[in-house]
């Protein structure tokens, strides 16, 4: 399975998924004849409201559901192929963990399912716990975790095998802004290493921040599909950003623009988004209370997930 850099690693062709009742009568058509192709190293987002078919599509890609019509190929093989699963990482919509296992035991279990050597399992477990800020809770049962902590350990289990394809279903659900930022940074880091990410979310800002391409689903069908920049770009307007000018000069520039274009130009100060502001506040507070400590949200990425490793 040596794939070329621009090769499609996930191919969905005319996929239809119809859920049936006990008597095998069609109940609901969750996915209706969709086709998607995801290239290696791409971050692909599946967007849509609840019940639009995002999770169903992901579950078919994972082999958890069977296609009613059409076909799905992952790394050129059927999704249920064990060799495909060796290279997959999956974070479900809810973490679905074994509540009686501790965080460390959980990661060790999933490491064993990939037949990782004990030394590698131990190293990766510690690195992931450190990366996700769960070192202090490593020996607590997962059942005692908050939703955000469970989400983090769910993400860790999806990355324990250093997968080539990472499938994330609502990865930021239940996470605080720090966790959200961290997940998005992680996605970008993984993409930088040539990993393919299939992301499913209804949080549009998250998708916009990290995805190269998106598909918007509604009632099981693709309604829009393409590069994020292409889809969002407003080609009939223009924004110029420059350092602040004296008020008189600003008025002159505006007057000139109005004369030349015949339209009233809009003027405002660029604003940072709330997430960046929030993280800055935390960074500052953290540095003040514990000089020299690493601020929340700036934990390092696990060594084995870093570029070049």
């Amino acid at each position, binding site marked *: 399975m040596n794939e070329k850099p621009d090769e499609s690693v996930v191919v969905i062709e005319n996929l239809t998924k119809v859920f049936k009742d006990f008597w095998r009568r069609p109940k609901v058509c969750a996915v209706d004849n969709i086709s998607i192709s995801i290239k290696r190293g791409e971050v692909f987002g599946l967007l849509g409201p609840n019940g639009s078919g995002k999770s169903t599509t992901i579950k078919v890609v994972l082999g958890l559901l069977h296609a009613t019509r059409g076909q799905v190929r992952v790394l050129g093989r059927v999704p249920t192929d064990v060799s495909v699963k060796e290279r997959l990482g999956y974070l479900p919509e809810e973490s679905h963990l*074994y509540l009686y296992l501790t965080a460390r035991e959980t990661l060790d279990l999933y490491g064993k399912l990939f037949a990782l050597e004990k030394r590698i399992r131990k190293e990766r477990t510690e690195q992931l716990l450190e990366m996700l800020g769960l070192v202090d809770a490593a020996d607590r049962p997962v059942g005692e975790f908050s939703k955000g902590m469970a989400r983090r350990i769910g993400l860790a289990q999806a990355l324990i095998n250093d997968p080539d394809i990472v499938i994330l279903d609502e990865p930021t659900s239940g996470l605080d802004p720090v966790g959200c930022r961290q997940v998005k940074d992680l996605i970008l880091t993984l993409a930088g290493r040539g990993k393919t990410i299939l992301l499913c979310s209804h949080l549009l800002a998250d998708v916009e921040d990290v995805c190269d391409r998106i598909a918007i689903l509604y009632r099981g069908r693709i309604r829009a599909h393409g590069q994020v920049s292409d889809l969002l770009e407003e080609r009939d307007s223009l924004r110029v950003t420059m350092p602040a000018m004296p008020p008189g000069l600003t008025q002159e520039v505006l007057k000139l623009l109005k004369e030349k274009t015949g339209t009233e130009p809009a003027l405002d100060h660029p604003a940072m988004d709330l997430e960046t502001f929030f993280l800055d506040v935390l960074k500052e507070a953290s540095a003040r209370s514990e000089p020299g400590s690493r601020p929340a949200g700036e934990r390092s990425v696990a060594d084995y997930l870093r570029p070049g490793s």
Partner: protein
Amino acid sequence: MFLKTLAIASLTVRSAVRSRLLICLLVILFVVTLGIPLSVRGDGTALSEVKILLLYTLGTGSVILGLATLWASCSAVSHEVEHKQIRTVVVKPVGPYLLWFGKWIGIVILDAVLLLLMGLLTYALLFMSLRSAGSEPEDLGTINSQVLTARRLFLPKEVDLSSEVHRTVDELKRTGQMPEDVSEEETMQLIYRRLRARRTTVAPGASLSWEFDTQGLNTSRGSLFLRYRIGSSIGGSRQITGTWRVDAGKNGDSFNTGPIPMADGRHLIEIPASTISPGGNVTVRFENAAKGSSRTVIFHGDNHLELLAPAGGFLLNMVRSLLVVFCYLVVLAALGVTAGILFSFPVATFAAFSLSSIVLIVGFFAFSSSLTVCDHHDHDHGGGKASVMERVGETMLEGLEMALSPVRGIAPLGRLADGVYVPLWTVVRAVLILGVVCPGILGLLGGYCMSRRELAAN
């Protein structure tokens, strides 16, 4: 593959430990092991106390373990499907067959630990009770020779009655007494049953003899025993007088009890080992000494006469018995895991318990040769034909009976409490059929169904 199997198995074990199922089972088994000998009363003899400890305690403990095995194995997969943890496991490189195998091994490990603990506790209790009870030396001798031993069981040779049946039929034909409303085949069966019945009754003054093939018998381990079960034609507790004579070996040795009184029920006669020379035939003869009265002696049951010869120690026999019990638990675990893959937890539990019950009931009917549903003919009304439903039921029962026939009669705990040797072949048969073949078939079915099932449909 080993690491993956171990991971899934250890997950199952951890689940049982941390959900306190294991602790709960340990407490129940402890209470059963200690409580049953205190609550069940035998006939007051030390021998019956020991038998109760072995049969009832180990039997009840095994039944509890069997029920717990079915319950735990049904939940092993179905619980994870319902709580969706299975989704994070099946997307890992774990094939459906490996997943089934791992879950099964986990339950089997738990069973092995629990059964071992129960066996050790019973063994310790057995010897502690023998020491502390201050039993009479004579009682201890009886216990040692009849329970804390492993005696090989010899049954009389089957007598070929076919020539006598044919002769009787020919005679009936010659005299024109053949019944017209019954086929010749059925007449032959009736005659065969009547002749067999004659082989279990002894009229006053008459005698009956049986022949035993004692191939493989070892007389160096101590006395042999002749065990028989009788009743009289009058019934009640009135005594019968009879004489047993054992003629054995090439050197013509014989043993004669002389006329001995005997009540209805089961009896044991000790035969000196020197009487029998191994490798030959032993002839046992019973003479009904009740002359002048109408008290016919009837030998009850299929195994109405047995020759018991010491063949080994108790501990090894107990290990073999528990190994057979373990094989039963192994097949129950396989059934439960497969049912858990096919159905939700309540349905899986119901299906597995129902199937086990059907197997037990059919096994019981087949064992007692009472499949009367197979007899279509209504002799009183000139013979009626079976309905379609009866035929379907009959075919199903016959099929199940045929499927069960290899494991029928593997009842190790009864043998252990009776001091009867559990042959190695029985253990091998149990391991092969119950430990390998049945779980193998159920595993293939479970793995296939797992590969076909949509695990994220709910």
